[in-house]
């Protein structure tokens, strides 16, 4: 039998890799992918909990996470494209419009 903690550790490691990707990469697309990676790592832990606790709640939550992830990807990429039309770059360290 595989202990629950293994799944959780796997999930934690994947999440940290996602965080690294999010913080380190320049390409906005890869940053988006990192976000998806983090969401998936959380999903793994949720499904694992669901299985080990014999509860359906975790799976339901994963279902909603996927929904939100789909919405987020759609909106995020649409923003990306809209931005790209005005300013043809997706290098995140060249996007500093937030600076006053």
């Amino acid at each position, binding site marked *: 039998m595989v202990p629950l903690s293994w799944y959780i550790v796997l999930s934690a490691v994947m999440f940290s890799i996602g965080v690294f990707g999010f*913080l380190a990469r320049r390409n906005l697309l890869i940053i988006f992918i990192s976000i998806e990676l983090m969401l998936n790592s959380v999903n793994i832990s949720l499904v694992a909990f669901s299985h080990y606790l014999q509860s359906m709640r975790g799976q339901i939550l994963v279902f909603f996470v996927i929904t939100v992830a789909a919405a987020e990807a759609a909106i995020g990429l649409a923003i990306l494209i809209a931005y790209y039309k005005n300013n043809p770059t997706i290098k*995140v360290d060249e*996007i500093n*419009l*937030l*600076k006053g």
Partner: protein
Amino acid sequence: MLKYTLIPLLPFISFLINILFGRNYIKDKAHWIAVPAVAGSFILAVSAFFDVLGGHDVNVNIYSWIVSGDFNVSVGFLIDQLSAIMLIVVTSISTLIFIYSIGYMHGDPGYYRFFAYLSLFVFSMLMLVMGNNFLVMYFGWEAVGLCSYFLIGFWFHKKSASDAGKKAFIVNRFGDFGFGLGVILIYLTFGSLEFMQVFDKAGSIAGQTINILGNDVNLITLICLLLFCGAVGKSAQLPLHVWLPDAMEGPTPVSALIHAATMVTAGVFMVARCNPLFSMSPVAMNTVAITGGLTAIFAATIALVQNDIKRVIAYSTVSQLGYMFLALGVGAYSAGIFHLYTHAYFKALLFLGSGSVIHALHHAGHHDEQNMQKMGGLKKYMPITYKVFILATLSITGIPFFSGFFSKDEILWRAYQGGDLGKFLWLLAALAALLTAFYSWRLIFLTFHGTFRGSHEHEHHIHESPPVITVPLMFLAFGAVFAGYVGIPPIFLEHGDRIGEFLAPVLGHPAGHGTHAEEIFVILVSIAVAVLGWMVAYNMYIKNTGLPQKLQDRFAPVHKLLFNKYYIDELYSKTLVQPMLKASDKIILGFDTYIIEGIVNGVPNLIGAFGRKFREVQTGMLSNYALVMAIGAVCIVGIWVFLK
């Protein structure tokens, strides 16, 4: 309980609706909200009055207002005989004046605002009257002052009006400061602010003294004098009377409601309410009586020579308020309240009648519409106004069987019984009654008799006011004539003094110790002065119209002194206002330039300097922000790791 809560609440709701939705939605329909609200209050007040009449007093706390340690104040109502009478006076006159205002204020751009403030005023006045502790009373006290300020300065685009508003507010501050100190001292002394608890404990501190700057002062006297300070300010007694005549800059319904019938009598009401305290301090009582007596005669002399129709009535109000204080001061509390009650009707009537005249002249295009010297002969154009004016004047001058006679006579008789000081005050009051009769008839003769002294074109356009104005006048005239029949002196009718007996549980009913002969003497004197005043006025303004000018030339210095109101405004201006302004100028130059501006400019500069340093943190790059956020998240997780 709801009934009693609704009495002040209805006008307050009307205020909220009108002030919130008036400008854009209600506009010239404001009276559809305000009049039913105040009429509802009136009906409830009548019902409350009958409850009290049936022996059902109310003293109830509605909710806890302030709870802080031992300091515990509730918003609560005390409805006893005294407040029941006040409720009737306030709500009945308010209702009539609200209706009157529909006509008088018609077409004014601030129509909704007027009704909003007027409703707020009624709410505040009812809180003042109904409160069962000093703090609620103080709240009402200040709130009516605020409304008075709003309404005096209602036509704020007129400089004189906004100045008058400020003057009223500032002069009242002097009195209210004393009142506030008095309330604080009451709390420190008795540990409570509720009327009943304070009055129950009042006996226990008799003779106690308090050390102020090395002098031992009787505690109860000090409390009473401080409270009386507030009354002097609010009820425009000497030396703080200066604001009331100027308050006539407000619209006439305001003068009638606030500056004649209700608010200015708050001081009288307050002293009567605190009668258990005042009765314990002869010094305070004498102060009240002498202030009242001096004010009565003092204001009456000024009224003799004024030309502005509203100012004459304003000084008459000050004088009549003096009467009320005189009555309170000689211990005749119920006589004071009785006069308050009758005065409310005939004085409101006088004001509204003068308002009707002003309204008519204004619509006729007359520019100097308040100057009596430019009026005259209005009798044939405004018959209803003329008749009600006559009734009000008969009442105020104390002609028998009009309501003013009963209350005024009661005061004079009580004063007469009060020893040497009482006799002296009686003399003052009788003299003031003579002057009152004179200037009241002078007003009538100048305004309504003789020939019109304005232009012919204006005369052509003068006509009687619409029914919305004259009908309230008729109702008030009814009150002015018959209100006094609740207090017929026992010498005429056994148990005739119903109001005195009704108020006895709250105010006591001192037994008279004069003889019947003396009482008849007092009554005859007061009738005699009333008639004498009329005769003199008739002589001077009807029969021998050149006489006033001759007298004026003959006694020019006296006339000038009176006409300029004893130069009291100038005196205050020289001794208080100007030095204050000069000092303020100095302070502004030094303090303001260096300290205030130093702070005002220094703080932004400091912030700017910090800002310039810290803005470098804001790179505008998303990843940096995300990094900082991630560091924060890691720190939180780290705390958990290391704490476990």
